[in-house]
């Protein structure tokens, strides 16, 4: 099964690499969120001149100690990029079904699980590359992401562990969805219905502590919030204190459970979607 999964994943990635322009929309979205949203919605802009350093300190504490709003925002934008690109990444799979390519796989001795897993992996690889590029863009833009001096390569991997787990869970569920629907219109309708609430009911842009109670309750169990919280701890602090490390550990464990459950759900949904007519 691994060989077939690798062959099908390689097919998708080969096409993707040959069309580098396909990464641009995602990258532009990331840039606009970071440079434009990050500048115009920066809460520091609301502090009147002469309000003193106390106001700035309160703001910094609210944003988990992040030195700039873009530093706070970067992981949020990466999570949003993950959510949107995972969700719409399934369009290629719907096209494969509509154009008959999927049927040619289904009449070959290819395990159904390989068809599903190749969809999951190709989506994950594409979006994680975009996530890394977004991280680099955040570092490059003026007044952008400011990492602490203690931030190491290990911390970078720690940040991406959270993103990989979130991405894996999302890829499991959105790949199964793409194999289930029959038209691109249906996929777009469902995805549009899901993605905006996932984005706004999280701490992607603002801390959930500023939300009304009912929204905070939802945001705090949203896996996007957990991934953000874990990634931000490392982005803002670098080396973690023991309590911060415990929070990071719980968030990662939460994301492991999230990815596992969606993996199970996605597998059964995909198996159902790929059974004979």
């Amino acid at each position, binding site marked *: 099964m691994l060989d*077939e999964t690798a062959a099908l994943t390689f097919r998708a990635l080969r096409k993707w690499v040959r*069309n580098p322009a396909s990464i641009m929309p995602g990258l532009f979205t990331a840039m606009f969120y970071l440079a434009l949203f990050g500048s115009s919605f920066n809460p520091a802009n609301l502090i009147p001149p002469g309000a003193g350093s106390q106001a700035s300190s309160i703001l910094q504490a609210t944003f988990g100690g992040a030195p700039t709003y873009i530093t706070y925002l970067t992981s949020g934008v990466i999570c949003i990029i993950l959510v949107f690109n995972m969700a719409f990444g399934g369009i290629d799979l719907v096209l494969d079904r509509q154009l*008959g390519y999927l049927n040619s796989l289904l*009449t070959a*001795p290819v395990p159904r699980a390989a068809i599903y897993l190749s969809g999951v992996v190709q989506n994950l690889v594409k979006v994680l590359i975009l996530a890394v590029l977004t991280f680099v863009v955040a570092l490059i833009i003026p007044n952008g992401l400011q990492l602490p001096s203690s931030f190491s390569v290990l911390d970078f991997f720690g940040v991406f562990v959270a993103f990989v787990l979130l991405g894996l869970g999302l890829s499991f569920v959105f790949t199964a969805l793409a194999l289930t629907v029959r038209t691109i219109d249906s996929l777009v309708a469902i995805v549009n219905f899901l993605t905006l609430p996932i984005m706004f009911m999280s701490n992607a842009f603002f801390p959930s502590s500023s939300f009304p109670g009912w929204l905070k309750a939802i945001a705090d169990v949203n896996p996007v919030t957990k991934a953000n919280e874990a990634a931000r701890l490392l982005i803002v602090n670098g080396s973690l204190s023991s309590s911060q490390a415990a929070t990071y550990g719980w968030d990662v464990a939460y994301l492991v459970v999230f990815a596992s459950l969606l993996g199970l759900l996605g597998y059964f949904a995909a198996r159902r979607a790929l059974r004979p*007519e």
Partner: protein
Amino acid sequence: MADIIHADDLTKVYRGKVKAVDHISFHVAEGEIFGFLGPNGAGKTTTIKMLNTLASITEGRATVAGHDVAKDPGAVRKSIGVVPQELTADDELSGTENMMLMARLHQVKGATARSKVETLLRLVDLEDAAGRKVKTYSGGMRRRLQLVMGLLHEPNVLFLDEPTLGLDVQTRSKMWHYIKGLNKERGLTVFMTTHYLDEADSLCDRIAIMDHGTIKASGTPAQLKEAHGGDIITLTLAQDKENLTGFLSGIEGVQGVTRDGKVYRIRLPKMEKALPAIVAGVVQKEAEIEEITFSKPTLDQVFLDVVGRSMRDEETSGSDSAWENIKMERTR
């Protein structure tokens, strides 16, 4: 020869209400080219889908290469090659890349895969275009590529669903040449659907005519023509004064008469015997003959007789052709 496909009372009902295939039984012998002929929506593609494991069987049983389709779909998939109606080769990959991928998915690897890909591409005259992306191929080249993509694992049975749909006459005849070659030289059993009568006549050892989900007739093209055909005299009168259908039907040897204005289509087993009586009778009725033509039996006549309408009427509906055009122009 032993049967390689056996279908017994095969039935497919979609969503519990649409009966696409209705209790059909047939068999295909090893090494045979067997054709399913029928108008759009007759149930041909659904039958192929059941045999190649894409559609579940509602009722009945089918075996392919000795494996029960419902109970052992994995073994069936290893034994078959499928060339679908749609053009499914990946546009963004080259001919060779498409073939190598399909080889790997069928567990054909390494030097064996490379050698087979090379041989098969040469077989359909695509060796010069092998390195080009499929999106630069013509419709005929795509069909040829698709044909050999189904052969990499040396299947026992090749399923061809409308293999020449949307192709020009010259390319169609080339495809027939390739299919015949595969059948004769490699002994490959071919199960194909078509709604081109000349294709069925030229390629198939045996034919089954399907309509509304059932098999209306089956046999060799010669048997079908003998049973449902007969000679045809087409008589065109100068004026449409009197309806001569009843009179003509009464002439000895005449099997049937259809009338379209002043044109009469007279079916009879041997035209030579009844022709003098027909001409004499028409003259006696003081009708002037403008034109008289004769034709030998064709599958079109068989189809008309069996299904009750001409295949040409079906072809002009063009739904499949329109779909095909969309596929050809698609970009991935």
